[in-house]
């Protein structure tokens, strides 16, 4: 990793479902499993609450990466929410990739309330990926008037 990337502090928005991933993040906290402060968590009732508008908005306002965490498929508190999330995000991410935006900037991970370790590891890895990618330029530049 270059020195420039070391000093680069990315802005990362993490949407976490209240029942699994937010609790997983709490567990990571109570287990003192650290991950970079660059990650800021927004609590949502379910991963299916996350509108693609929120993700694009984050990028528009300067986020360098957006990660969405929900219950493992099959374990959704609302039974089916994350199944819709899975389809929506697969399509959205595929579209962003199609437009030439680095596909590492978006991610969905399933993290249960018991997976504090996974939560922290995922965030560490995601921050690492974003640092390696550097500041998000492309999405910001993808406007109608260049």
């Amino acid at each position: 990793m270059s020195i420039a990337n070391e000093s680069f502090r990315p802005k990362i928005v993490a949407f976490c479902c209240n029942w699994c991933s937010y609790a997983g993040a709490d567990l990571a906290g109570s287990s003192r499993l650290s991950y970079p402060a660059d990650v800021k968590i927004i609590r949502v009732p379910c991963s299916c609450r996350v509108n693609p508008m929120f993700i694009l908005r984050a990028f528009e306002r300067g986020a360098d990466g957006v990660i969405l965490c929900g219950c493992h498929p099959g374990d959704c508190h609302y039974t089916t929410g994350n199944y819709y999330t899975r389809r929506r995000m697969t399509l959205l991410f595929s579209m962003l990739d199609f437009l030439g935006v680095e596909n590492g900037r978006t991610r969905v991970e399933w993290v249960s309330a018991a997976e504090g370790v996974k939560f922290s590891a995922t965030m560490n890895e995601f921050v690492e990926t974003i640092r390696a990618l550097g500041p998000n330029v492309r999405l910001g530049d993808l406007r109608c008037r260049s």
Partner: protein
Amino acid sequence: MQELRKRAGELLADGTVARVLAWRAGDLPYNPEPAFFETEAELEHLVYDGFCGANLSKLMIEASKLEGKTLVCLKPCDTYSFNQLVKEHRVDREKAYIIGVGCRGKLDIEKIRRQGIRGIEAVEGAELDGPEELTIRTFSGEKKCAYRDAMLERCHVCKGKEHMAYDELLGESRDTKDAERFAEVEAIERMPAKERFAYFQKELSKCIRCNACRNACPACSCRKCVFDSTKFDSEQKANVDSFEEKMFHIIRAFHVAGRCTDCGECSRVCPQGIPLHLFNRKFIKDINTFYGEYQAGTGSDEKAPLTNYTLEDAEPSVVRERG
């Protein structure tokens, strides 16, 4: 065209329908426009030829609210949009009398112009039963152009000559497919990411936010578009360049994903010539790949891909993994 006028006249006369939704000549020889006709007399202005690309199904949303039935002329590909609107409870099937009009591919005046033909005064041979070659009269004399070479992009990937819904059929249709539907999308997918980005940046930079695509799209039929409402906005709106400008096309494509019938109106009406259908078609391709073949508007009561799921669906990481 005569037959269509005659049949429409009959149906108006016997009270089957209260009005006719079709096309009438525009100010130029190649830009007929959608129009309602309420009397037999008005029908003499009705036209139907190769330039009648406009998909009339969206206009049935408003027509459904009117008294009596509306006769609507739909080409085979328009019927998909019509069915989709019925499925979404936007159009009342009972309020429509559909004449499935024949189609041998619709024309794109830009394609004629791109062949160096300028100063167009009239185009002959555009009618349904016309010859395989168009004769174009211009300031500088008569030019020829094969009908096929002047067709809209969407007609080269024609979904077929069958009407998915109709009350009666009028005129022959032809399947004009001679290209792979996803070839363009695949070509872009093969480009390196940076090239893809540059390509779309160039294309989207042309957008003037005229909303022509939104207005023409039969799936984009919200009463109030989110980009015109405050539903997703925050208090700081004035401080930054607006959200809509950047993300409008992605969100628009996402909102119609699984509902878009690939009618191609967005690209046809774009005054800047942005290939907007690529967004929709990319979604269609992904949907077909990930969740199985799906065509919106066939009239089946299958669940739309984005309001459906299976336990074994692909994970979003598939996007990263395929590289």
